[in-house]
């Protein structure tokens, strides 16, 4: 986990997410804390919250010591064997998971890195991305709801505002030229019940769709299937032209 001991980046102290320790801790410990927070979060997603499973799943030999330190810092509390985040720890863990999964998404989908490479890079970047950069990446990607492995990406402030100021490599389906094809990168909708019918027709991230018509309704083609849809739905399907 600490394979990046020799990593040259130095500005950890600037990271507001780490303000709580006042810059007293060594870098490696700070990162082990991040790793443990992340692990607690991902285990909790699977419904696992006890300390024994946590210890089994970590490769950090110092885990017990770090955990003790974390508890003193008020990141979580113990309820018997069950480990429960306190507010501070929850927020920190959420931030780390968000940075990790957004990075994965960026690296795999836009830079077309392999899963392994992306995972490795994401493990490093999750510790150093500032909130501003994180939100920019998130906006740039169009506030994706899940990472490439299908795990949820916690929302940030930018998701609630749905800003899209960056000039994207990917853009809404509506911006394709007639007859042009695009690969769906993600679908970002806040409308309940909209994803399911699209999914049933096979419109999911990764597929290539072609824009066939704009008026009087949008018509897209995916494989041998033609689907008519509202302009407003086309605006929520983000594609990378191919």
């Amino acid at each position: 986990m600490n394979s990046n001991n020799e990593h040259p980046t130095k500005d950890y102290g600037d990271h507001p997410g780490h303000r709580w320790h006042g810059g007293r801790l060594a870098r490696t410990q700070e990162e082990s804390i991040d790793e443990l927070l992340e692990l607690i979060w991902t285990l909790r997603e699977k419904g696992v919250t006890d300390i024994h499973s946590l210890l089994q799943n970590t490769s950090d030999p110092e885990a017990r010591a770090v955990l003790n330190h974390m508890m003193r810092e008020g990141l979580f509390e113990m309820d018997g064997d069950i480990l429960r985040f306190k507010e501070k720890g929850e927020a920190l863990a959420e931030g780390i998971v968000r940075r990790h999964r957004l990075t994965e998404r960026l690296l795999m989908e836009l830079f077309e890195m392999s899963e392994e490479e992306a995972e490795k890079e994401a493990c490093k970047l999750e510790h150093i991305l500032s909130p501003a950069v994180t939100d920019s990446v998130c906006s740039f990607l169009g506030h994706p709801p899940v990472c490439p492995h299908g795990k949820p990406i916690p929302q940030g402030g930018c998701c609630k505002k749905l800003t899209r100021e960056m000039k994207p490599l990917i853009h809404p389906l509506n911006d394709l030229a007639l007859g042009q094809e695009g690969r769906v990168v993600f679908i970002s909708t806040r409308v309940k019940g909209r994803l399911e019918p699209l999914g049933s027709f096979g419109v999911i991230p990764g597929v290539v769709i072609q824009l066939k018509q704009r008026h009087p309704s949008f018509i897209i083609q995916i494989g041998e299937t033609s689907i008519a849809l509202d302009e407003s739905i086309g605006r929520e399907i983000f594609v990378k032209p191919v």
Partner: protein
Amino acid sequence: MKPITPTQDTSKTSSPAKVILVGNPNVGKSVIFNYLTGTYRIVSNYPGTTVEVSSGKAKGGDSSYTILDTPGVNNLIPNSEDEKVTRDILMSENNYSVIHVLDAKNLRRGLLIALQLIEMELPLVLVLNMMDEAKSRGIAVNLKVIREIFGLPVVSAVATRKKGLEQLIPTLKDSPRSTFSFKYSEPIEAGIACLIPLLPPAPISKRSLALMLLAGDESLRAWLEERLDSQELARIETHCSQYQRNFQEPLSYRINVERLEKIDQLLIPIQTKQANSVQGWGRRLGEWSTHRVWGFLGMLAVLFISYEIIGVLGAGISVDFLGKTVFGGYINPFLTGMVKGIIPFPLIQDLLVGPYGIFTMALTYALALILPIVGFFFLIFGFLEDSGYLPRLAVMSNRVFKIMGLNGKAVLPMILGLGCDTMATMTTRILESRKDKIIVTLLLALGIPCSAQLAVIFGMLAGFPAWIFIAWALIIFGVILLVGFLAGKLIPGENTSFILELPPLRWPQMKNILIKTLSRIEWYLQEAVPLFILGTLILFVLDKTGVMTSLGKWFRPLVVHWLGLPVESTSSFIIGFLRRDYGAAGFFSLAQKGLLTHNQVLVALVTITLFVPCIANFFVIIKERGWKMALVIVGVVVVIALLVGGMVNWVLKVWA
């Protein structure tokens, strides 16, 4: 081979084995069904729905089968009523095997269903239909690989030319369960593992049931309630909502994505595509049919041809022939003579063959006027349905419906309403939100004349100048738009989105259309004839007791002063409560007697077109929307009808 269990044994000897046909829409299920069952079949609506389900018998060697055709599905986690019906059939039948029909050129979507059927651990045969179309589009499919991956029999077919179908029956004999299985991502698998121990036994595997529940399938609730107590149910619900909380996307979508990703992987060795896809006439026509200019012209052409067939051939020639020649010339004089000869009491004579007689009014009306019109309407509707044109109408009209807070899908019940508003009100179920359903139900009740009423209106207008017809059409259209717009603003709820598949246009199978039309006519007669008789009886009683005359007095101010119509027309409004066309027919006879001026014709037609829905429609509104909403709708409709009718009257007066 698996050992034969006692249940399978009895099912083989006592009753024919059950086979359920499943597949995406438009993959040729009905053609295969026709091939297997021959001509005899039962078409029925699935209980509580307008979704048609056919069943029939097939013979193969020494065994016979009951074949069940299900509505087309895109997913077995239901998003629509059709999908729910198919899923419910799979959940309620026992000891059956499934023939899954896939479109060979659209394997990805077919396999999405196949994967779910495999998960259900059902005995399964795959039929890859339309192999010829796949080939002509440069798609090569490797059947051997499919057989190996899934461990299932795979039949390659071109159903319309009966190619390959002869292999189907022999494979049914012992259709295996697939050996294929695949894992979802960890959080979903964890959810499945938690749910399985809580589930009751079902004809499909618990794993598939757990996945449906994780997907938040509300429609399963009723099924579970029958089998579990409230405590167990609550536990399942907490589990499901807990797992959903881990995801921002709906879990159903997540599950779907993982299935499709698996399928995309599987497809690599199964399917190879070449770029030389051929533009067939069907495809080109399909593209023109939604073009902003050609599509619009095409739509006008379709409407014109439909009018020629339903209006001219049906409402004109056939009604004339049946009404004047068959009933007027032979049947009614014969019945009148017979009744008067046998029954000496004038009251009963009148009841049977008088002006409000059961034979002379109700049955003549139902069989000579309604039957040909409705018959031709359903024939055209069936043709449009099977050719794949109806969704194109939705595309062309989406913008107009957006004005009313609806989307293009609403055009389907509206068009069906031109045939029968009662049936159309039932099909509002294809719409997604409560808001959409209320608006369409209201507009159907208010402004969409059914084919019977249209026929009377056209018949009546034939004798008057064209401006009356144009004014009538514009006023009705304007009222529908305005009321729809206001309803869209006033009724709370989000506007729903428009997502609709456009199936390829194709020349339909005439046999299929005929069968559909006949079963719909049958439904219509069963529904309408008793109401005709009831309505006629009520009129008969009102007439004989003199109530009709006093009602006329009460409503005189409204009818005579506000609407400016002759006092005799009151009875038309009263019978308008029973059937829309009855009311119009009352005005028709007044017009024929020369009792109406041009202006009065327009006022009368506008008012009676907008006036209350028929009794059958009213009952269906109650059933679908509840008592309160039904009364509100009828109240709104009566007020709008009288208001608009009166306004037309006064505007015409001021004009002159």
